[in-house]
């Protein structure tokens, strides 16, 4: 039973990684939000399983928190934002998806190399997945760089937070409770502020294209 469960941690880790790749290549904003929700669900499941296997009960709480925040609250907020901004069916033109994917693969290899020596030192049941967590962080970073629209950039930001939460579970037996609560609070407030910003940007620029936000440059 326990071997099966510890295997399933690896499974969820792989799901996270695949979803991170899928998000890089996804053109439709609505599908992007669905992918993000799935990623949150995989993260919550992985956290709960690690909590069960190690007997660290505060991880249950952290898993539930992740679920409430990343599967329920934030997706609801994002859906409302895109509905009110009328970008629900928007399709973004992405250039050079194959090249981006190749860069992504290089990042994954880099992340695994960086994490390998540290993972050996960790005592967590999920230590093998630290590389995957770091890869998710770097892939979200890549996504934020290549996207030109506000909503996908914000989703990239949130998905980076997912990778970090997963790193905390994979490398350690979860950060102290109060810290996790604080981080969750910051993420929630951050997404609310970004939501407000999107409306203001739209009002000022008539578009959610971040490329309009390049006026302030050095002369």
């Amino acid at each position, binding site marked *: 039973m326990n071997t099966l469960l510890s295997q399933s941690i690896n499974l969820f880790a792989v799901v996270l990684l695949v979803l991170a790749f899928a998000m890089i290549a996804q053109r439709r904003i609505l599908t992007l939000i669905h992918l993000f929700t799935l990623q949150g669900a995989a993260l919550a499941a992985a956290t709960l399983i690690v909590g069960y296997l190690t007997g660290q009960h505060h991880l249950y709480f952290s898993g539930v928190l992740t679920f409430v925040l990343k599967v329920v609250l934030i997706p609801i907020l994002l859906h409302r934002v895109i509905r009110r901004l009328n970008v629900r069916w928007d399709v973004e033109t992405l250039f050079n998806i194959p090249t981006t994917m190749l860069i992504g693969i290089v990042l994954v290899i880099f992340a695994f190399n960086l994490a390998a020596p540290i993972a050996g030192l960790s005592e967590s049941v999920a230590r093998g997945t630290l590389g995957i967590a770091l890869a998710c962080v770097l892939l979200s970073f890549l996504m934020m760089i290549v996207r030109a629209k506000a909503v996908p950039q914000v989703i990239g930001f949130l998905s980076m937070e997912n990778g970090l939460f997963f790193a905390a579970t994979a490398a350690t037996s979860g950060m102290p409770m109060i810290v996790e609560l604080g981080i969750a609070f910051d993420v929630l407030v951050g997404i609310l502020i970004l939501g407000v910003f999107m409306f203001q940007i739209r009002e000022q620029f008539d578009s959610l294209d971040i490329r309009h*936000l390049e006026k302030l440059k050095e002369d």
Partner: protein
Amino acid sequence: MDPLVLVLATPLLGGVLLGLWGHRERAGELNAGMSLLTLAASVWLTVIVVRDGPLTVWGEWFFVDPLNVFLVTLTAFVGFTTSLFSRPYMRIERDHGKMTPGRMRLFHSMYQLFNGMMLVALTTNNLGILWVAMEAATLTTVLLVSVYRTPASLEAAWKYFILCGVGIAQALFGTILLYLAAERAIGGGEGALLWTHLAQSKHLLDPGILSLAFVFLLLGYGTKVGLVPVHNWLPDAHAEGPTPISAVLSGLLLNVALYALLRCKVLADGALANGLPGRMMIGFGLVTVVVAAFFLSRQRDVKRMFAYSSIEHMGLMTFAFGLGGPIANFAGLLHMTVHALVKSAIFFAVGHAAQKAGSQAMEDIRGLLKVNPTVGWGLMLGSLAILGMPPFGVFASEFLILTTAMREAPWATPFLLVALGVAFAAIFGRVQPMVFGETSLRPLAHPPALLPVFVHLGLALLLGLYIPPYLDGWYRQAAQMIGG
């Protein structure tokens, strides 16, 4: 009653109170009053620390030691003087139609919360809470930077949010790695991220994990410090936000980020014992000083120019702490203090000058001495102080940094001297026509609050001539704590 409770609770309560108070009359006075209370509480705290020595409170969750006690007082002090300055300044902005009642409410409420979050970050003993408070301080200032809702301010705020968000995410990864090392060395649980525990057993922390953790922490908190190449948000946020916010961003938030970095450096130094963190800070600091000095000389916007000057000075402090040792650390701490005082004073003067000219472009600001002599003298003396002219405190700290650099890292001194020279020529050359020169502009409608400018400059002058013994004692103890 614990004075620390008051120090932390006053601004947080003030944020709520001013949110409820809204745009009614006397909101500006209430804001200044809350800041004065915070300052009084932190002076009380300082008196207790002077009498009884360092203290930890509430089951070691918060602590006050020589490294943070003077920063707490400095933060509360500049927070108070800035609230005094912002009262007439924001009133003029409202008369110019830039601020609506709703925005005034947001400004006052977020200003208090921002101060509160910085004080939490300074006094917390838990490195995780330190991260949370830094991020919260970022969030409050994002709203403040975009308060005018102009396209440029929205762009600046968006950049600020995204760049600092990504940056601070790196710092979170560094903190997670630190926790991993702590779990192995002193066991997990709530106590494992407490700085005092980590500092006691820093030699036990795994060097492999710590070196990687420090890279992430340096990049992460370095983004907030404004280190090149992750400094891009800083000039935009300073130039487009309201001037009181530019003053507290430059004077206080950058210091708090550097403070976070220093706390992490102590741990990494203890675990690594090969001087790698110091060398990385020397490298980043030096590049920052040089790049910022050259960008500075190309600016046309007065607030952008002084924002680059802040980047330059933060680089100089990072360089000093990278050198390490009692003298360079002492100089770095002194520089943190005088830079905060002088730079906020400059922003106060610049704010009124730009309001009067109706523009932040330096070619539009002329003849300050004729119309508002106090603004003109404030800007002139402030610029001389920040450029390191002798009687001011900046001279003392820069002199100490340079002489230590000549001994410890002689190769770096020519770069530093060239950068300081370029900055001097640029700022002095630009400020002179703004202060002297001819003008046809009318004086401001409300009398500007320039007392803070001269109080700050007076203190910076005092620190250049005489450092009180307890302050000297703290600097020495803190310098020893930072080690390196």
